[in-house]
């Protein structure tokens, strides 16, 4: 369990610095009375008398999944290609997206939703490309949920966009379980964080449609073992298309951008 991330706290996300639900619905009110003490003598009902089993058989993330499906239908109707971009903190998501938006100018109109626990820094960096960007501050929550994305998307003029990029909170664990309604899950793995990252976080890597090896300009300096990393990605992310890029030098950016243009075209023709 994660004390730090406080995933249990709902709807405290703020959009572009405003917190619509600033009140805290905190269930942890102090317990003045204690339960489970001194129950040696059971009350008069016979134990097991009316025990019965109710079959539920429901998926737990059902509510998020339903909202995600709604997002997906809505985005599809608008002809938007939607990416959910995930990685460890600092793998280079924001830099990579800035370069992607710039390289796509004249080809795809891009809007961004970016999630961080705090600050609007990433949105400001992304807006510097000229693209509209909405910041979601998740407070203590370590992932984005479909509902937050729906709210943030309502602040963008989606009809003027072709590509909606969602930069998730830097985290390789929790975001794996939360569908946002995206078409493609894009997972970044920077050459500075070790070839075995995919082995350590199988659920997230397994769900990837695209795996991006980032910061390849640093590969030599960090003695990055490319074959090993690509081998791990092929095994752990069997459905992923793999790109190798440096946002700093621009190396490898064009095949990635061409891929996005093609996927957007396919979506429009479908």
């Amino acid at each position, binding site marked *: *369990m994660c004390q730090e991330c406080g995933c249990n706290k709902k709807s405290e996300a703020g959009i572009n610095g405003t917190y619509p639900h600033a009140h805290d619905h905190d269930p942890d009110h102090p317990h003045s009375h204690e339960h489970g003490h001194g129950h040696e003598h059971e009350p008069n*009902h016979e134990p097991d008398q009316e025990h019965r089993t*109710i079959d539920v*058989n429901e*998926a*737990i*993330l059902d509510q998020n999944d339903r909202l995600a499906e709604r997002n997906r239908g809505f985005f599809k109707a608008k002809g938007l290609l939607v990416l959910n971009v995930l990685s460890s903190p600092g793998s280079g998501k924001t830099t990579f997206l800035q370069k992607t938006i710039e390289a796509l100018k004249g080809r795809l109109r891009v809007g961004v939703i970016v999630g961080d626990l705090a600050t609007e820094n990433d949105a400001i960096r992304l807006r510097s490309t000229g693209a509209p960007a909405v910041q979601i501050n998740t407070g203590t929550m370590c992932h984005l949920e479909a509902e937050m994305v729906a709210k943030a998307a309502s602040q963008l003029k989606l009809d003027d966009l072709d590509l909606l990029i969602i930069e998730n909170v830097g985290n390789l664990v*929790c975001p794996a379980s939360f569908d946002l309604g995206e078409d493609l899950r894009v997972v970044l793995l920077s050459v500075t964080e070790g070839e075995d990252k995919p*082995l350590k976080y199988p659920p997230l890597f397994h769900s990837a449609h695209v795996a991006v090896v980032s910061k390849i300009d640093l590969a030599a300096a960090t003695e990055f073992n490319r074959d090993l990393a690509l081998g791990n990605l092929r095994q752990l992310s069997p*459905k992923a298309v793999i790109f190798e890029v440096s946002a700093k030098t621009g190396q490898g950016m064009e095949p990635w951008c061409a891929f996005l243009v093609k996927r957007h075209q396919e979506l429009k023709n479908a």
Partner: protein
Amino acid sequence: MHEVGIMQNTLSMALKQAQASGATQVHELRMRIGAMSGVVPDALTFAFEVLRKDTLAAEAKLEIETVPASCWCARCQTEFPVPDLIYECPQCHEPSVELRRGLELELVSIEVS
């Protein structure tokens, strides 16, 4: 990790069902958790012990059935286990993209009175 949030959703679902059926006490919750669900059963149990206080499930047990991951090979038309999370068909060595089992995160049933 988000076991607390998951447990909270699970407990709400259980309590809603219990109340709808007119029960006054929940004795047991049964969950099914896949090996690839990203959820740690021990963390769920810990969260459960905290969250159940002051609810109809205050004295309930949590039973967790874990489901190992398995994949489907379209070429060989077989399901194969992936204990080490390597998704390669043992017969034809093709990587499989179809996870048949292991993503479960379900409330199976509750026992009430």
